[in-house]
Structures are given as structure tokens and as C-alpha cells.
């Protein structure tokens, strides 16, 4: 951090304090602590876009129990920080996904689940689908149709690693 000397001595205290606070949050071990905290409290919004949602449900159910990784599907977009796009995304739904994404607080992450979400999969020439990439930025891609619940948990673990490495 480079705070100019005259700035710290003369005037603009507000700017100075802001810079100091930003430095403490983002450039010191506090940032690591913050990332560590975020990585174990991923709350995906309950936005089951298509049929991969069955496996999304199964991954939260007792056999796989994704909650062990600190990941709990939750209802409102304001309280969540992860979107899991389960499968195909229709044009009608793309609007809703974008709206949900914009309502979520920062930092926010996206997992694209299944072939349909990544490149439309078996519906590659469909007239009513869009790729997830065109709607929201994606952090982790999971292939499969549908992906197994293990793969879903793996994607969550990978996302946690990415966040801890510095998002």
C-alpha cells in the first residue's frame, strides 16, 4: 500500500481511513481468514432449473450429505452466495437466473452442473435453451448428465479451494 505522505498528514482523513481499512481487509492475513470463512459457508440458492435437480436433491440427502462441507441450500437470493445451475437453462428462466444473481450479495459464485448447462448437452440444437456462460460467469464446470452427487460435492470442494486460494 502506498499512502502518500501529504495525504496522511494533510486533510482527506476519510480517504485515508478507507484505504487503511481496505488494506487490512484485503492485503493481510485477515483476507485469508475471510476467504476461509466464506469457503465453509457456501449457501446455494434453491434455484432448481431443470432435471439435474434430482441429483442436487440427492446430494443434500443422507447418502451423500453435502451439508458436511458447509453447504446448505437456502431459499432467498439475499441470504445466499452460490448459484448451482442444474441442467438446461431455458430462455424464459435465464431472466430469472440473472435477476437472482444480481440480487445476491458479493462475493458470489456459480457452479454449472451437467452437460446441458455447459454446452446444452443432448439438446445442442434446441431453440429454447441458452448456455450458462452467456448469462452468468461460471466458476466450476461439472460434466455428466446428470452428474453423480459425488461430482457435485467434488465441485463444492473445488470451489472452496478456489476461494481459499484467493477467489
Amino acid at each position, binding site marked *: 500500500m502506498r499512502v502518500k505522505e501529504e495525504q496522511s498528514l494533510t486533510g482527506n482523513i476519510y480517504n485515508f481511513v478507507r484505504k487503511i481499512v481496505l488494506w487490512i481487509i484485503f492485503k493481510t492475513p485477515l483476507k485469508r481468514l475471510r476467504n476461509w470463512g466464506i469457503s465453509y459457508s457456501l449457501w446455494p*440458492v*434453491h*434455484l*432448481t*432449473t*431443470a*432435471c439435474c*435437480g*434430482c*441429483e442436487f*436433491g*440427492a446430494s443434500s*440427502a*443422507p*447418502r451423500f450429505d453435502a451439508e458436511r462441507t458447509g453447504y446448505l441450500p437456502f431459499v432467498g*437470493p439475499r441470504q445466499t452466495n452460490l448459484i448451482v445451475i442444474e441442467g*438446461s437453462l*431455458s430462455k*424464459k*428462466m435465464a431472466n*430469472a437466473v440473472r435477476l*437472482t444473481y444480481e440480487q445476491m450479495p458479493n462475493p458470489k459464485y456459480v457452479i454449472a452442473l451437467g452437460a*446441458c448447462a455447459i454446452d446444452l448437452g*443432448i*439438446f445442442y*440444437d*434446441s*431453440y*429454447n*435453451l441458452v448456455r450458462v456462460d452467456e448469462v452468468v460467469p461460471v466458476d466450476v464446470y461439472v460434466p455428466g*448428465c*446428470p452428474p*453423480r452427487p459425488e461430482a457435485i460435492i467434488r465441485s463444492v470442494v473445488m470451489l472452496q479451494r478456489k476461494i481459499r486460494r484467493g477467489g
Partner: protein
Amino acid sequence: MKTSLSKQQDNRKEIELFIGPQHPASGHMRFIGRVDGDIFTNFIPDPGWVHRGIEKIAENRKWIQIIPLVERAAILDAANMNIGYVIALEKLLDIEPPPRAQYLRTLLCEINRITSHLYGFGIAGIMIGSSTFYMWPFADREPLIDIAQLITGARLTYSYMIPGGVRRDLPQGFKEKALKALKYIERRLNNDYFRIFFDNPVTKARYQEVGVLKRDDAIRLGIVGPNLRASNVKYDVRKVEPYAAYPELEFDIAYEKEGDCYARLLVRVEEIRQSIKIIRQILDALPQGPIIHKKYEKLVSLRKLEEYQKTGIFGLPAIFTVLRPPAGEVISRVEAARGELIFHIISTGELRPYRLRMVTPSFRNIVLFRELISGARVMDFPAIYGSIDYFPPESDR
């Protein structure tokens, strides 16, 4: 304070209430309701949020490529979607699969019916706030999914049936594993589920005499599946127009008389029991023999034929890539987990179908939302939705 309240009541207006599209339950779907107090005066389902255009895409695919495509309509219920299409295709090609293949198909369909109903229970449970009854059925699906995975090699999307037979024979030691899983699920269903959910006074208070569908209404609206049978109509495609190995198997049609939400759940419970009975019969009376029509058996390469005789995995013959069924029009109907599934296929003798019409049970049940929820209280909506066992991707296709 009092006056203002009463004043408000005098000028009371109906409020428009939007539910969804962000995940009201299994998959997304929007409802537009008008509420007066806490009573829905009008309720309009608005589907189409998972529309992928399967009917149109099918016109652009080879016949064999449509098998995985129609499964994606309801991957919970893939085997039943699969068998509906394959039966239609076999009618066009005029071939009949060997008896062992018929039994194997029936076996997978019934396993799939159980897993699908258990999924429905889980969703119904979480919708009325009983998270235990979300966890239990979802956990108890898993042994059966494992069984299906042993046969087909996939968890949900099996693509198991091909024209003329099935792709794989049973693996070794399958029967013991399957019987164990059946015993487990039977014990859980008959004891634990009833104790914690179906006999629970809370459940009964939420479900009984809510969302009553009378017999005449059910017929008038063309409802299908367990929802129809809960209104005392004994219509089951497996009995009316038996396909696969159903003519040789013994089972009863599950039905209830009341037509309310509770009856709809009980019909599903009884159907699971009948499915278990069917699977037991199949495991006992599985005929020996080939799993694929002899016309196709000769068409695979020698190496594949060796593998087939050794491990029971039948490779697809190369002719399937250029399959051209003769021109014609066929209709097939099968009983999927959520009701009657219809395929209406027009062939012109080309590489691809001219038109494939797929009428899924959920789409025919969609009208229930309007009929049952109009007039109900707001908090009856989750109970009714859960009891209908509606699956949006299946409805929208």
C-alpha cells in the same frame, strides 16, 4: 386502531400472488394466484420454464438417438419413458423382443417406479415442513438406485432398452442383492414410514379432506396415474393394455375412494407394495434365453458377440445408426410412475421421425392445480402440490 382495521376490511381487494418461478418445489414453475384473505379465488399454473423442445429436436435425430432424448423428459422415471418410446418403435419395426428381455424391462420399470414414488414422498414431506420425511425417502431410494445401477451402469439415465431387447443381462449375484434391498424397503415402508408420517396426526390434519378431487371431475379433466386412481377410477395401462411382461405377472390396481391429498399418497404407498410384489415374481420366474431379438444378434461383430456370450453385455449392431422403420403411424401407451404416457409417432420411412408427439402424465395433470387450489387456503397449496407429485421437466418437455 379498530376502526382503521374494519375500514380496511370494507375496501378489501383481491391481491395477486406470484409463486415461483424460483423453485416452489421439484423443479421450477410459476403460479399466479388471486388471494382473498387467505383463500385462493383463482389459481393459474404457468408452465414452460423447463421447455427444451424435445418434440422438435426428435425430428432432427436418428431413431436410436431419441432413446436418451425422451428419457431426459423425466430422468427420475427414465425407464418408463424409455419403454414407451421403444414399444412404439418396435411396433413400427414389427419385432417382438424375447421373453427374457421383456422380464428385464419390467424389472427395471418397477424399480424405477419405486424410486420415483419415493422421490415424490420426499418432496411432499419437505413441502409441508417435515424435513425428516424428506431425508428418509431420499435415503431409501439409494439401495434401489444401486440395484438399477448394477443392471444398467448408470444412476438415473439408464438408456437400457433398445429396439428388439435390452442392452445388458443381469450381473452375477444380482438376485440376492435385489431381495435384500426389497426387504429393507418393505420394512421401512410398512413400519417406519407409517409411524413417522402417514399415521402422524399432523400429516393427517394437513392432508385429509384437503384438495378433494371427485370421481366425475377426475374423468372430465382427463387426470392420469395415481391421482386418477385416488379418485376411485380403476384405470391402469398395465391392466388395460398390458405390455412387456405384465400379462404374465400378478398384481392389483391400487386405488382409493376419497380423492383427497391423503388418498393420493396412500395410492402411491400401495403401488410401491405392488411393485415389490412384481419384482419378487420377476426374480423368481425370470426365463432363460437371449436378451435381444435374433434378427439383431447376428449383426454385431464377432468380438462383440464373444463378449455378449461371456459377460451378457450386448453391443449395438451398426445397423442402428441407419435404422429406417417403414412408413406408418403408431401409438404406444405405458403406465409411467406419474401416469399414462403416450407416444404418437409418424414415420415416413426416413432416417428420422416425421413427427414425435409425447404426452407426459405431468402435463395432463397440470389442470389439477387450477381445479384443486382455487378455493383452497394458501397454506393448503404446499400440501396439494406435494400430493400431486408434479415434475415440471416432464410436463414441459
